[in-house]
């Protein structure tokens, strides 16, 4: 029997993950990470700070007969995730805060403190699998492809894999709910959280207004322009837009129009047709390889460019500090700031942040 640290958010998934570890005979230590303060007044930490999640996780831990602690990671989380989130929008990009959190905050803290608490393994309720075909542990997509969360975990350091357990990797969401009901867990019927945890209202512009200087260019009015430079209208700040977005552009176009680019320097939001949205060359930075060997130029991989988007075929053109990918078909909404995650079949090779995307015709021209 080993001692396992399990991250419990207070949701049904991590509740069931903890329950499965208990059933498997491990000594389980539950922990909830306190990441931020809704009211932004840390001095009164007892009355805010995602307390519902903490309370739910505690109830489940009590019911399972395991200990439960709270890890306060607010300082790290604010620096590594919230500040980055704000900075990315301020640059006209669209961040993946959950990726940042997993790569920089959550797993690092769990590993570090897990060791201090004498834990051999770290577990979470992510829908991903650790496969070991004899050549060491590999990260792979969860069995339930509709819930698969591998897109969020490309930033895990490879050396962590031997220490990780993902008890839900082989289950479907339906099965997880059934287990939670069978065990009468307090979180069994809790609805899925869709929002970014530190934007509970769903309106991230509010957060930007609070954390950016009111006069920040990202929040200032600017022009909506066509790909040929014609001004088509005005916007209230480019931070409110993301590449591929269709809503919020006003009407009056003869065919559906999408945001195809954000130009922070000129405060311009460029719109175009679906055809104009397509990109097939992608430069990816801030790379991390979950597999020991990065792919070599010429390698054929599949790449996922958005959460819930299907992976598409691509060829590696160059790899170093950055990665250059050539997509087989142009893809819509290849968005700077989002993650590009590389797979071989179901296995996660690694990934990075999308820096830029072009049409091959532009590049060769």
């Amino acid at each position: 029997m080993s001692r396992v640290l399990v991250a419990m958010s207070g949701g049904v998934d991590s509740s069931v993950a903890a329950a499965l570890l208990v059933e498997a005979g491990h000594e389980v230590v539950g922990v909830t990470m306190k990441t931020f303060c809704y009211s932004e007044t840390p001095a009164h930490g007892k009355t805010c700070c995602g307390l519902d999640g903490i309370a739910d996780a505690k109830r489940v831990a009590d019911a399972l007969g395991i200990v439960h602690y709270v890890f306060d990671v607010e300082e790290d989380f604010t620096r590594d995730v919230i500040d980055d989130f704000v900075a990315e929008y301020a640059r006209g990009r669209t961040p993946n805060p959950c990726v940042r959190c997993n790569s920089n905050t959550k797993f690092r803290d769990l590993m570090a403190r897990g060791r201090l608490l004498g834990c051999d393994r770290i577990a979470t309720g992510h829908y991903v699998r650790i496969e070991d075909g004899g050549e060491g542990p590999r990260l792979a997509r969860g069995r339930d492809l509709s819930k698969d969360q591998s897109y969020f975990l490309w930033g895990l350091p490879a050396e962590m894999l031997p220490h990780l357990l993902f008890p839900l990797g082989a289950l479907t969401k339906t099965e997880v709910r059934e287990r939670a009901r069978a065990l009468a867990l307090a979180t069994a019927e809790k609805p899925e959280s869709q929002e970014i945890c530190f934007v509970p209202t769903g309106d991230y512009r509010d957060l930007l207004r609070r954390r950016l200087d009111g006069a920040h260019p990202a929040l200032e009015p600017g022009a909506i322009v066509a790909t040929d430079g014609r001004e088509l209208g005005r916007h209230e700040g480019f931070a409110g837009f993301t590449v591929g977005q269709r809503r919020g552009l006003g009407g009056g176009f003869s065919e559906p129009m999408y945001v195809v680019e954000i130009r922070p320097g000129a405060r311009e939001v460029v719109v175009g047709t679906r055809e104009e949205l397509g990109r097939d060359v992608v430069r990816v930075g801030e790379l991390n390889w979950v597999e020991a060997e990065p792919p070599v130029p010429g390698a054929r991989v599949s790449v996922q460019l958005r959460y819930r988007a299907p992976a598409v075929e691509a060829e590696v053109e160059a790899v170093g500090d950055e990665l250059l990918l050539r997509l087989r078909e142009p893809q819509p909404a290849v968005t700077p700031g989002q993650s590009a995650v590389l797979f071989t079949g179901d296995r996660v090779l690694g990934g990075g942040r999308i820096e830029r995307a072009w049409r091959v015709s532009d590049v060769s021209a």
Partner: protein
Amino acid sequence: MDPLYLDHAATSPLRPEVREAMAPFLDARFGNASSRHRWGREAAAALEDARADVAEVLGVRPSEILFVRGGTESDNLALVGAWRAGRSRSAPPRLVTTAVEHSAVLEAARWLREAEGAEVRELDVSPDGRLDLDALEEALDGTPALLSIMSVNNETGLRLPVAEAAALARARGALVHTDAAQAVGKIPLSIAEASVDLLTATGHKINGPKGTGILFVREGTVLEPLLHGGGQERGLRPGTEDVAGAVGFACALRLAVAEQAESARRLETIRSSFGRAIRDAIPGARVNGSGGPRAPHVSSLGLPVEDGAALLMALDLEGVAVSGGSACHSGAESSSHVIAALYGPDDPMATVRFSFGLGTTEEDALAAVAVTREVVGRFSPRAARAAP
């Protein structure tokens, strides 16, 4: 290893004698002490017996004992009640207290400052428990004052110079309150000698029931009640009396005071072997307040560990139940105002409070040292390597 409870300063187990004394009042003798019938008379008699008991043990009059529902309530009634009574009658007193008081005193004083405009002075205390008496005199000068100074600090066990400070204060006509929650049964305690006007004690720190306590109010000291209702406890603490609680408190107090000298010797022995063993096992460990006079049941350590919150969790997982600074800041981590007051706000040490009590043996204390050494070694391999 069986889990070790070394957190008696947070709360302590109920003594069987106390439980037995309380039992009839949780059962057949359930009456309301304010009722005039047989049940009520029985309850009232038990309540007054308990009051007389407490008064006798403390060497004061029964009419000077108010039963309240714990230490925090007692502290609040003393500070807020005396401050408001002063305000009603002449001028509100200046509140003079120390930076190491329990939150029940500090927060009450700060609340009076924010909400009602009280003038508050918080005096520094040195790491060996000394108070700058010149600063105290200065704080007491020129205005009516209420001095609130704790007898024994709950986080470090440091004994504060209550009698000396009280003499200074009374010579200037100030009222004096002491929170003696951690002193009762741990050090010799004499209200006559300490010469205080108000004294707080609580049941659950002396193997009595939780939610019980008293405020000693010297005859002639005027308070305003915080609650308003049926006039119980001379109108200062209205609400149906907790007879079982009062009986339990009185029983626990009598036992604690009767056994004080013997249990102090026993705890002193345990604490010194604990302290020696810790210093041998963990180079760089500091015993907080060790240079000053201390009550025998607390050993607060400063350990060379960055992540104090994880240290407490690790000790818990290995079966050693202790606190950070105090048990009041649970949940997420929170630093101690007492350690900051004694050692500065940037003190790099992690604070762990071990506190001993009924049933603690020297073997328990030494077993806890072995666990602590192993756990601290995980945090900084250097700290444990030097040990044998």
